[in-house]
């Protein structure tokens, strides 16, 4: 009989919440960054592009350590956020979401950037002649046409956030009920005697969740592109 213990359920619920919050917060930044990279012409664009992709190539432990230095309670950004907004990242689930969001960010930006680059700019000109100001052109033409890319990016980021381990454990440790995600829980169970069964159950959950995310994104992406490539 397949049944999760309360501790295991907590890890699953926490993982989903962290991945959702991470993706939701990363999305507007990713759209802005994707737009800058696709359309912007400015000094330092190559640097921005490199920075965005850095979490993809850096060892996750390094990313986690950098987050700890900057976003910890005494870090320059962390102290500022705590003093002014009361936001705490260190050793909280919010910190796990931050780490997951940073790690998923390059995967979110890339498809959005590609989608924005492939949009026929002449459609945006047509919208302008019909009376749409630049903000309305963006909302009514650019964003809907980029939707398949946005969906693809959201899936990749969500899946990456769901499985994040290295940066998270370095930044916010492995606290049951607060920062212990599925990955961290599997790791913990493997360290203790008789933990194999629990680890195995969570491995199954991880497989099911990842597959479900893939299938959902495939279906959504196909629906989105069917909307303007014929029914």
């Amino acid at each position: 009989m397949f049944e999760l213990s309360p501790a295991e359920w907590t890890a699953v619920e926490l993982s989903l919440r962290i991945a959702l919050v991470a993706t939701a917060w990363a999305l507007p930044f990713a759209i802005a960054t994707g737009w800058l990279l696709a359309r912007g012409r400015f000094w330092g664009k190559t640097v921005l592009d490199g920075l965005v992709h850095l979490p993809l190539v850096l060892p996750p432990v390094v990313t986690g350590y950098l987050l700890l230095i900057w976003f910890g309670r005494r870090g320059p950004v962390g102290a500022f956020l705590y003093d002014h907004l009361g936001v705490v990242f260190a050793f909280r689930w919010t910190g796990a979401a931050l780490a997951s969001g940073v790690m998923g960010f390059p995967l979110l930006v890339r498809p959005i950037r590609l989608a924005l680059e492939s949009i026929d700019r002449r459609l945006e000109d047509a919208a302008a002649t019909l009376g749409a100001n630049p903000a309305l052109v963006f909302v009514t033409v650019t964003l809907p046409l980029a939707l398949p890319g946005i969906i693809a990016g959201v899936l990749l980021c969500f899946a990456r956030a769901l499985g994040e381990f290295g940066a998270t454990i370095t930044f916010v440790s492995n606290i049951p009920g607060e920062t212990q995600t599925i990955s961290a829980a599997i790791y913990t169970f493997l360290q203790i005697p008789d933990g194999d069964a629990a680890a195995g159950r969570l491995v199954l959950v991880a497989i099911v969740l990842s597959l479900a995310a893939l299938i959902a994104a495939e279906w959504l992406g196909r629906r989105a592109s069917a909307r303007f490539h014929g029914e």
Partner: protein
Amino acid sequence: MIMLAVAVEKQLGALTLAVQFKAGGGVTALFGPSGAGKTSLVNMIAGLVKPDRGLITLDDTILFDASKGIDVPPHRRRIGYVFQEGRLFPHLSVRQNLDYGRRMSVRPRDAGELERIAALLGIGSLLQRRPRMLSGGERQRVAIGRALLMQPRLLLLDEPLASLDAGHKSEILPYLGRLRDAAIPMVYVSHIAAELRQLATTVVQLDEGQVVAAGGLELLAGAA
């Protein structure tokens, strides 16, 4: 009577565009071979391309004045534009395409007006379709309807029949004739004299970025 006055200069690669003309009511034809700068010129009137120097006015409104630094953005010019390739929004239905200009200017919905224009252009039965499901001729008629429904002060048409075969051309020409008779001022770009003979009231002939002649239909007499 409406009056469009254009006096612009722009360097476009090897081509130096330097054009002056005026257009009253009716259909003003910009006639000339491809590469003469016709499309660049209408893009300047629409506000999509910025001239290096010059002045563009429509009635008593200054649309562009390089010396005063005035350049009204396209979305505030209220100039309808029918592009050569239609440029319908692929993610919207025909009805939503037609309604786009009204939504952007936040005018109250007027279903009667949309139905009237759709009937005028013979696209009333296509309103629920997506642009991809339309023939070339239907697509171009929707593009004309979309530009008309924004209630433009002036309608620009850039070779609207160029992407169509002979059958579809003769399908659209009568509709354009109706628009002319409905007294919507138009600037009509074409390199085909036969098209213009049926529509134009005045002709401005362009070649290599310059106006070589301006006058009536007699300018088209010898042309193919």
